């Protein structure tokens, strides 16, 4: 390359670099930006455990999205608002938010939002032991899912839990074991399924396998850092140990469960 060629290359190179750079993305309109910012703030507040702030910000997001006719976004925010409200122990308000999606007569909300809303409604009603009301909600979710959706394993885990609560320990055990073996189900649902299976086995007086499943669930929940579930697992292990006649072991698990619960209550900010 001659000296003149090198100079030409040096002159052209900055131009080529500038041409390669993509144009900056245009800034969205103010209202859309506000809705996104409110949603982002709400999610951050939820991560930080500031549930009331998260609830307020999700409510703000919802209004902004509805004002922009963002029905899909509004449906997601209604689900998020219901989830936060459930965490604040205001289950009636939570169910009301979900019903806004489920009882909408016009098909303005996407089917996946309806599926998620139905599933979460079933979970909340199961938590409240309102199984007769939870059943149609779960059935609706199952129909929308058709065993093909991402929530399929969650639905099956919940089904197993409901079977157990309805006294069908055998059915619950079979379904829970099937879910617990599916790696696609995710660690949370696998741990949930193991806990259901262990509780079913506890009911069926299969203490050894119950202890084994509680132990597996405990390890998973510890890995996931889910304090409330760890407490449940330890309590289950205490009960099974007592069934097995290992009282000192039962007392130890029970004590650990109490410590976990106390610490968890202290770590979670008051709503």
């Amino acid at each position, binding site marked *: 390359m001659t000296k003149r060629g090198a100079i030409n290359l040096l002159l052209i190179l900055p131009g080529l670099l500038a041409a390669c750079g993509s144009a900056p993305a245009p800034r969205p309109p103010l209202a859309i930006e506000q809705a*996104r910012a409110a949603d*982002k703030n709400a*999610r951050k507040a*939820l991560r930080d455990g500031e549930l009331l702030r998260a609830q307020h910000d999700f409510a703000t997001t919802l209004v902004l999205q509805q004002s922009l006719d963002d029905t899909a976004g509004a449906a*997601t925010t209604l*689900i*998020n608002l219901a*989830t*936060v409200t*459930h*965490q604040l122990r205001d289950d009636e308000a939570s169910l009301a938010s979900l019903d806004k999606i489920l009882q909408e007569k016009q098909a303005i909300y996407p089917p996946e939002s309806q599926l*998620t809303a139905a*599933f*979460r409604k079933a*979970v909340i009603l199961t*938590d409240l032991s309102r199984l007769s009301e939870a059943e149609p909600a779960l059935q609706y979710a199952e129909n929308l899912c058709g065993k093909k959706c991402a929530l399929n394993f*969650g*639905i099956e*885990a*919940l089904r197993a*839990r409901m079977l157990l609560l309805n006294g069908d320990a055998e059915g619950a055990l079979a379904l829970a074991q099937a879910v617990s073996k599916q790696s696609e189900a*995710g660690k*949370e*649902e696998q741990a*949930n399924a193991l*806990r259901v299976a262990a509780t079913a086995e506890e009911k069926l007086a299969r203490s050894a396998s119950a202890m084994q499943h509680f132990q597996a669930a405990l390890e998973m929940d510890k890995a996931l850092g889910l304090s409330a*579930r760890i407490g449940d697992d330890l309590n289950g292990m205490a009960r099974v140990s007592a069934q097995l006649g290992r009282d000192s072991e039962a007392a130890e698990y029970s004590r650990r469960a109490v410590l976990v619960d106390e610490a968890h209550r202290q770590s979670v900010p008051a709503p």
Partner: protein
Amino acid sequence: MTLLDDKDERFKNLFGKAAVFVLLAALGMGLALVWAGVKKDAFTAKSPVHFVADSGQDLSVGMPVKFSGFKIGKLNTLTLDEQGHVQVTVDIDSKYLGLIRQDAVMSLKKEGVIGDGVLEIGRGAEDKPVLASGGRVRFERVNGLEQAVVEVKDRIMPILDDIHQTLHDPDGDVRQTLKNLREFSAEMRVTREKLDRVLGKIDGNINSEVEPLLHSLRLSAANAETLSGKLDYELPVLLNKADTTMENLRQASETIKDAVQRSAPQLPGVISETHATLGKTQKLIGDTQEAVDTLSTHWPLKSDAPAPETGPVRMDSHD
């Protein structure tokens, strides 16, 4: 024959010069006369036209004769015949005679309301033959202001006579109406007297009923005055109580102030500690923000930043 021996050169041909001067003067006078004759239509061919007028009033020799507003001739002679009729002859320029038909009418008009009289000849019917020289036309007078006044007088006088008759007829409508009005007025006077008596009675009734009402109103006013007196007496007491309350409040305020002053020495320490904590927190937030900003602008992290969450927040079957 030479009478004088003209030796002065200026008198040579004097006669000839005087003759030229006189001839020029005569020629000028002649031209002036011709010009005047032309102006006076003395050389224009005229055609006489005759008509008979009822009287010679407003007619005079030399009066212009007009056709469509243009002067086409003038009144030439005005004579009274043996029957007492006025025979009038007008001379019309012969060149305009062809415009006038035999049934044309000669009208005597006034120029303006009170102007001079003028003869106006009409065109006549188109289907009639052209008026010949020496022909006769019909004459009429167009009513002037005087005639109009006479006509108005002739019309108004009978009306005035009728009005006079109507007003003075004892059995006429006007007299009868006036008589009726007089009677009605007398009746109205009687009616008014009756009304006065009725109103007097009403007045008496109102006085007898309204007076008690006024009396009770006076009593109410007296009660209000009493109440006002009571308020005058009680308000100072209430104000004194309010003063006492305000004094109590002031004392409470001073107590609080003392308490604050007593704890004041401890406050700067607490405030300085809070300040220090806030400063540290702000510094920490600032450092974190700076670190995040710095990292986010660097190429390796810029494109690998996690996409913002958009879906529903996490919740499983046991939440």
